């Protein structure tokens, strides 16, 4: 009997579960912590000892209610100051999916963290206070979701209990959001009226809003179609590491290890190695379990080629008839992540897929006012949390796709050469 057959039904379901990474944006006042607490609590991801520990801490601090924010505020400084400083990752699962929440603080000074959390997310939950409607924060959170190419956005119109569960109020905010989000580049936008405090439409359907016929938040999270969030069209394989056992058993083995960044690779495919431009045929796609018939993002595999050509880390294997742009001149949207501002004409270390190069910042085209989305053309000062369009010149060609086409081959980071800090996140236009 094989191992698989021995496993009971629930385990089998668990193995078929997909992974959804989502980010939550909103300030403390929007009820973000309450919403996360509700999702974790109702899906039984909060354990007794965790609950007991935050109950005790709440009591010690003289708080009237058990403060669910303590679940996500893990660092001493955060607890002392009652704010979330860093991205906190939370995990929960339902029988359908496993979820990773990147819980990020919502204030403007934490744009850096929002961007970090958004970079790996399939979906963003943006909270809007039903009493206040759209605020600058809503604009900012929406813009970041769009900038970071998050394919799905759910606007939760929260605190419906404080506006008497009014359909009129909900429709008003929804209309504003629809109008606003049409200016953004998000593929899939949804709206849900909720009360995180009382649980309306979070996990359970609300009895207070019978006029709302759409799904609950959890249902939406469980069913949103994410399989096509990866690019399965343009074949991109950044070479991460060369595997050469040089052992008696595998004397001549030479495999290119990496994680597929786009497209579908199959044995027999004609491929090209960049930057050399040499072509060859895929001999096999290897894994520990044996060769596979095809490989797609985000699989980690080892590719072997028919011909011996010189390929090393930083190179990219692509299809002959579909090659990325090879360029030393890049136009990118940048989020500045460091206290030390951007140095115009400054040189930085650059990481793009598995490649390291150096880059010169040639120009700041414009800055974006992230609250109004207006372009500021005459201000070239780019400091912490600023978003701008800049142009870069690199020491050697990079093989790139527009970020909107591929989040892996379209993204890069800049590193301060003196401190080694990651100072900028860039999305290629």
């Amino acid at each position, binding site marked *: 009997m094989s*191992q698989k057959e*021995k*496993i*009971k039904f*629930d*385990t089998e379901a*668990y*193995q078929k579960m*997909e*992974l959804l990474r989502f980010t939550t944006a909103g300030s403390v006042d929007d009820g973000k912590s309450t919403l996360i607490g509700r999702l974790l609590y109702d899906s*039984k991801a909060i*354990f*007794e*000892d*965790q609950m007991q*520990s935050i109950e005790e*801490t709440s009591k010690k601090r003289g708080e009237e209610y058990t403060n669910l924010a303590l679940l996500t*505020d*893990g*660092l*001493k*400084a955060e607890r002392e100051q009652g704010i979330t400083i*860093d991205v*906190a*990752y939370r*995990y929960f*699962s339902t029988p359908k999916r*496993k979820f*990773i929440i990147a819980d990020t603080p919502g204030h403007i000074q934490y744009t850096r963290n929002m961007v*970090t959390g958004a*970079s*790996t997310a399939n979906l963003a939950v943006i909270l809007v206070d039903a009493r206040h409607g759209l605020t600058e924060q809503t604009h900012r959170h929406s813009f970041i979701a769009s900038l970071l190419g998050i394919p799905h956005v759910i606007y939760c119109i929260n605190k419906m209990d404080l506006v008497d569960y009014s359909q009129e109020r909900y429709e008003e905010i929804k209309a504003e959001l629809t109008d606003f989000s049409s200016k953004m580049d998000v593929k899939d936008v949804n709206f849900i009226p909720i009360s995180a405090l009382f649980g309306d439409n979070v996990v359970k359907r609300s009895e207070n809003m019978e006029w709302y016929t759409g799904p609950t938040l959890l249902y939406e999270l469980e069913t949103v179609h994410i*399989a096509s969030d*990866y690019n*399965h069209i343009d074949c991109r394989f950044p070479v*991460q*590491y060369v*595997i*050469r056992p*040089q*052992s008696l058993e595998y004397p001549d*083995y030479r495999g290119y*290890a*990496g*994680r597929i960044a786009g497209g*579908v690779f199959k044995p027999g495919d004609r491929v090209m190695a960049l930057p050399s431009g040499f072509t060859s045929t895929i001999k096999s796609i290897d894994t*520990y379990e044996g060769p596979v018939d095809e490989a*797609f993002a*985000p*699989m*980690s595999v080892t590719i072997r080629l028919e011909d011996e050509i010189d390929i090393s880390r930083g190179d990219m294997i692509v299809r002959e008839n579909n090659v990325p742009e090879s360029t030393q001149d890049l136009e990118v949207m940048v989020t500045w992540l460091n206290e030390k501002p951007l140095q115009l004409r400054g040189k930085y*270390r650059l*990481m793009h897929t*598995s490649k390291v190069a150096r880059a010169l910042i040639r120009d700041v085209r414009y800055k974006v006012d992230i609250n109004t989305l207006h372009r500021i053309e005459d201000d070239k000062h780019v400091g912490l949390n600023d978003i701008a369009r800049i142009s870069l010149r690199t020491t050697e060609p990079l093989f790139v796709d527009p970020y909107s086409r591929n*989040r*892996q081959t379209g*993204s890069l980071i800049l590193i301060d050469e003196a401190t*080694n800090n*990651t100072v900028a*996140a860039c999305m290629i236009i």
Partner: protein
Amino acid sequence: MFSYRMNHLKELESESIYVMREVAAQFERPCLLFSGGKDSIVLVHLARKAFHPARIPFPLVHIDTGHNFPETIEFRDRLVAETGARLIVGSVQKSIDEGKAVEETGYNASRNMLQTVTLLETIEEHKFDAAIGGARRDEEKARAKERFFSHRDEFGQWDPKNQRPELWNIFNGFKKMGEHFRVFPLSNWTEMDIWQYITIEDIDIPELYFSHKRKVIIRDGVILACTPFLKLRPDEKPVEMVVRFRTIGDATCTGATQSTAASKEEIVDEVAATRVTERGGRFDDKRSDTAMEDRKREGYF
């Protein structure tokens, strides 16, 4: 029709393999911290997958408190032989003998804290520039904020307020001489994921994880195994209980749980039903609300 989907375990596996390969590519002298616990066993399994058919290109490092369950050491040596990996043992006893670490006294004495001294010494002695660990973000609140590539200064310290932003799957491993990185490929795994993976992949784990009869005492609500290293209070009487371990660490502070789960499948069912975190049984975390953050700042795993 074939759809290009991966289940969540395969996606987590792929992510961990990617991280392992980044370590091998970016660092000159990496190592893998092996405790004998299930997470580090899964790490070794993933490392084999990442570099197959080549051997794991870095040594396994075991920080040995000297207070081990014998099963852990037997298991370790068997795994080392099987993978052909190199084993380096950092001995806490040696650090104590050399006066670099001071043994705690009293009933709750544990060598758990002293591991930090030995770990940092071992890293320095072998000039390791990256140490792969099995920590997961779901384990503990300070760990929820940990990066995959976590920078340590020349004193081995973690500065949680000054962490490098980590975007997409680009890992910045640049550092100055004397600094190092801790790398956590299992960051996004939960305890349930680990057990499911162990079951599906049929990964060998020490017998301690399965239900067995053992002489124990109950101290402050934690079931502790009676070993030669545990000093009993006058009023403590060992009793025999049917238990298993959810985590395996230093024998003096690893709590057991009452359990009849005798197979991996039964453990999975038990984990699904349980309402206490696995570190709820760890005596070392009960010292204070921020015990883990404090230890991590100083260079703990």
